[in-house]
């Protein structure tokens, strides 16, 4: 059984039923068990039957699953808590997830439901059959041609602008977090993983505060977020979106990373490479917008996704 999300405005509902559910979650999470992800295949989690693995992330894996009540396909993200969780952390996490699930937009992956069973957390989400943009890049030998990339870029930015207007910051934008599906032969891009991983981490459920080892590579993270990992502002999402577009179009990263150098050292001490130095075919107007989005100094950037979107629409006309 899962906690049913109520899309209530304002304070989350603290009804007796939810509190009871919290108590049950705390009890279960307090007895963490490490489980091999393969175990979940063809098993029931909540009201879902797991079919196959879609991919792995920092704290767990994503699966294709079927909702038992109506047989609909959904993506099921499963996270394992690495530590015994105290009540306040758990409440904070659930509050954030409830908040994030209130975010509704045709270009944002919708969270339908979430819950906990057997010491794991699961999230039922919209399934995007097209996979991530990273897959699309691979299909096109590393970079996506501009005409194909254009709708993806504009839709993702529209979604991000919506999220920013509601006070949400993504913090982990990258090609693999933009998911694709198709509606009547039209490509539809959807931003995924909104705050899930970060909230999990922030609530101390990942065990990272215990180990101090932060997962992931910093290719799409702006300098200010590297030097101050608590810095959470829309303007950092602007940089990450700029880096994502840069990557989608050129197959390279804004910073001159090289395999035998510590990437953090590169971010701290090197400058972003203007996109036209990577690929002369990028139109000058577009290049100008991306270079501004990727300014080192936050004040020189577009301040919100809306500003970036307007500039891009203009440049891509």
């Amino acid at each position, binding site marked *: 059984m899962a906690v049913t999300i109520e899309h209530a405005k304002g304070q989350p509902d603290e009804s007796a039923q939810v509190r009871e559910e919290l108590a049950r979650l705390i009890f279960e999470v307090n007895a963490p068990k*490490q489980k091999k992800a393969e175990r979940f295949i063809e098993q029931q989690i909540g009201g879902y039957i797991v079919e196959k693995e879609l991919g792995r992330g920092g704290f767990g894996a994503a699966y294709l699953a079927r909702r038992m009540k109506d047989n609909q396909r959904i993506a099921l993200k499963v996270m394992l808590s690495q530590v*015994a969780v105290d009540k306040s952390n758990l409440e904070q996490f659930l509050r954030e997830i409830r908040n994030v699930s209130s975010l509704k937009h045709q270009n944002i992956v919708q969270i339908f439901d979430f819950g906990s069973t057997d010491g794991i957390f699961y999230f039922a989400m919209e399934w995007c059959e097209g996979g991530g943009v990273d897959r699309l890049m691979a299909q096109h030998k590393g970079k996506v041609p501009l005409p194909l990339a254009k709708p993806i870029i504009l839709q993702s930015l529209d979604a991000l602008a919506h999220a920013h207007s509601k006070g949400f910051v993504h913090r982990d934008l990258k090609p693999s977090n933009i998911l694709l599906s198709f509606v009547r032969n039209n490509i539809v891009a959807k931003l995924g993983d909104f705050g899930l991983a970060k909230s999990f981490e922030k609530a101390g459920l990942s065990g990272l505060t*215990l180990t101090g080892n*932060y997962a992931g590579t910093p290719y799409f993270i702006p300098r200010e*977020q590297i030097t101050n990992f608590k810095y959470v502002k829309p303007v950092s999402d602007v940089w990450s979106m700029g880096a994502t577009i840069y990557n989608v179009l050129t197959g390279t990263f804004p910073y001159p990373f090289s395999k035998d150098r*510590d990437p953090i*050292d590169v971010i701290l001490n090197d400058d972003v490479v203007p996109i036209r130095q990577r690929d002369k075919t990028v139109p000058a107007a577009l290049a100008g917008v991306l270079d501004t989005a990727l300014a080192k100094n936050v004040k020189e950037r577009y301040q919100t996704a809306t500003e970036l979107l307007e500039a891009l629409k203009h440049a891509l006309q």
Partner: protein
Amino acid sequence: MTESNKPLNTDSEQVWEPGQLLLGDFEVQRVLGQGGMGRVYHVRSRTTAMEFAVKRALIKNDNSRQNFLSELQTWIDLPEHPNIAACRFFRTIGDEIAIFAEYASGGTLADWIRDRRLTTLEKILDVAIQFAWGLHALHQHGLIHQDVKPGNVLMTTGGIAKVTDFGLARARLRGGDGRFYSPVAASNNESMLANFGGMTRAYCSPEQAQIEAMWKNGTPLEALPKLSRRTDVWSWGVSLLDIFYGEVSCGYGQTAGQSLEAYFRDNVARESLPRMPVEMTMVLGKCFQPKPEHRWKNISEAADALILLSEQTSGRPYHRQTPIKSSTRSGAMPSNDRRTTGGMEWSEPLKWLRKAFRAAGYDPAKAELHIPARTGSRRAQAIADMVVYEEAYRIFERLVAEGQAVLEDELAALCREKAFIHENTGDSVGAVELFARAIEILQRQVTQQGRAELESELAMAYADIASASCNLFDKTVSVTFYNRSIEIYERLVQQEGKLELLNSLAAAYMNKGSVVSALGDKITAVALYDHAIEIRERLVNGIGRSEVADDLATAYMNKAVAVKDMGDAASAVAFYDRAIEILERLGNQEKQRKPADNLAMAYVNKAMAVNAVGDSLAAVVLYDRAIEIWERLVNQEGQREFANNLATTYMGKAVAMSDSGDKRSAVAVYDRAIEIKERLVNQEGQRELADDLAMAYMNKATAVCALGDKHGAVALYDRAIEIYERLVNQEEQRELANDLATVYMNKAVAVSALGDKRAAVALYDHVIEIRERLVGQEERRELLGDLAWAKGLRAEELISLGERSKGMAEAQEAIESLRAEVARTGQVDLQRIVTRLTNVLSKS
């Protein structure tokens, strides 16, 4: 056995759940932290109640086992140091090795940061300085920690910081040869490492991150840059930054310089934390220099800068002194000292490994390659030996399991010697298990194979297990084992004429006597000691076995203690005299060093007995003789383990002097005792001696008070109160609560003598409050008399303050309670106070 004893066959580590029992004895309490190699758990022994931090390492094959054990060396070879958490022993659990290390009950520095427990600059600096001292000791030992972070610093509740190595620094520098070493290559990638070099991203230095990137990119080991101790300086700085941030300060350690800037630029107020002073910024700035050569050369220099800062801000000298370097002394340690405190010896480990190699068909000459270089303390050496014994033991057990029954004798002997090492490292449970294995083998050989020649070894093994188990289980279990041992020895001596076993028989009688004595049966104990004495007298004086003389003296001393416990101090003195006579003669004859501490102990014991019968002057003379010996052992021969004995002997002498009326001299002697105990408690981290120290202050105060210096006495009582308060209220040593009340009462008497009756009444209130709680909540009925005593004294003060009716009523009540207690318990000293109160009442 328990679930965890099953061999593990997965890559992922099996989670230990709180409450789970390991090795049948160690109960898992909680996860303390995460190392590069696995989790670290807090465990508590069910039998001994001792607590440990246990680190786990999954070992996939013999190769990595050997690698791992030699890595373990780096850690156990570290010198004894108050700011380093020592490794105690290790055990094998299936495919894992569990390392049992010193546990500090305050959690880790990471916990302290999260809970914001370091609320003043002084406290922060104190931790930072100790942290640096611990790292400095590692560096002096040629080690680079490489995973310095708050989670790797254990805290005692009293605020002592101990650097530990939860990941067991794998890449290291040895003796300054500057080579970057990693078992990743050493073991052909059969590594037990979870991550490269064991570093933690949030604390790593730029050069560590750079090396990691190059390594991942395929740069060969030889071509990687070398790390220096200054990588630890960087990570130490990051850890201190965390303290001021009150949380993790950097996502990536490399950005520490930016985080330091941000601290001031963003000017974020940290709730309940002090601001970082500018001087601190300079110290940290020098940690965060991108080029290692621009950082602090020695972390001790950074510590010195912080000491200066601490003294400037607090206006008083920093209260800890740089710990004594023990590394210089290690060379003087006898490298062949393989003995338990009980005097049991184990062989040179190479002997066993050679035997094991020969039995397994390996080249015995290769065994030498597996012997780690020995350095450091006695304990480090014991653990180094255990590593080799473990190897040999595994080979023998495997061969025996494969059917080579002829090796069983050897295995039994190996078990017995290995058990001594476990005992020596504080792992009595492990020792008992091994003795039991030896007994099982020997018993089977004797009864089924008719191997009568193994009977003496069986008797020995029973005596061993009896001795190892006497503090673990119900002591009657130990007595049963001794009986079994004695029975075999007696038969071998009486029926088979094996007179060479006589001293072993005497030892079994004596040791059984000690256990029986501890069970309270002094009469039987004395009879058992007499058995031992009789046998040993015959050996020493009858057939001239002078090497047994030391043992004979010990038997006399034990008898004296038992006799004194029975109330016969005069006879005890006579037995001590006999022991002293034997030991003195031995010392003169053979210039033996070993009995020196025995002799000193005999003097101290006799002094106590002599003082008990009222001859305090004779006691002082005896204490002086003991002091002379302890001083020589501690200060000339560097046997610092006797320092506490020395201090305790000074205390005894001071008490005797005070009893003899010479309070002035007593005060000087108390000072000497206090000086030593202060050093042991505050600089060498022997917190368990803190209550002794408080007692010394209290005794000195009483002597000073008697000399008329009431103000001085009050100051000393306050010092004692400060220590007891901390022990009782912060470290929850409830059993000291009544001692605390006693100091308050003594202080009240001194304050009253100074004329401040109101303050005295307030202090009595406090005493009464503590004792009422003890009597009421903890049912300490034996304190009823003490409680009434305090009430009586308060009543007296109230009367003198003019609150006559209240005072008189309370005095009357106290008298009744005291009389009832005298009648119930026969405590005659309470009668004195009754008389005194009666006088007060009649005068009023």
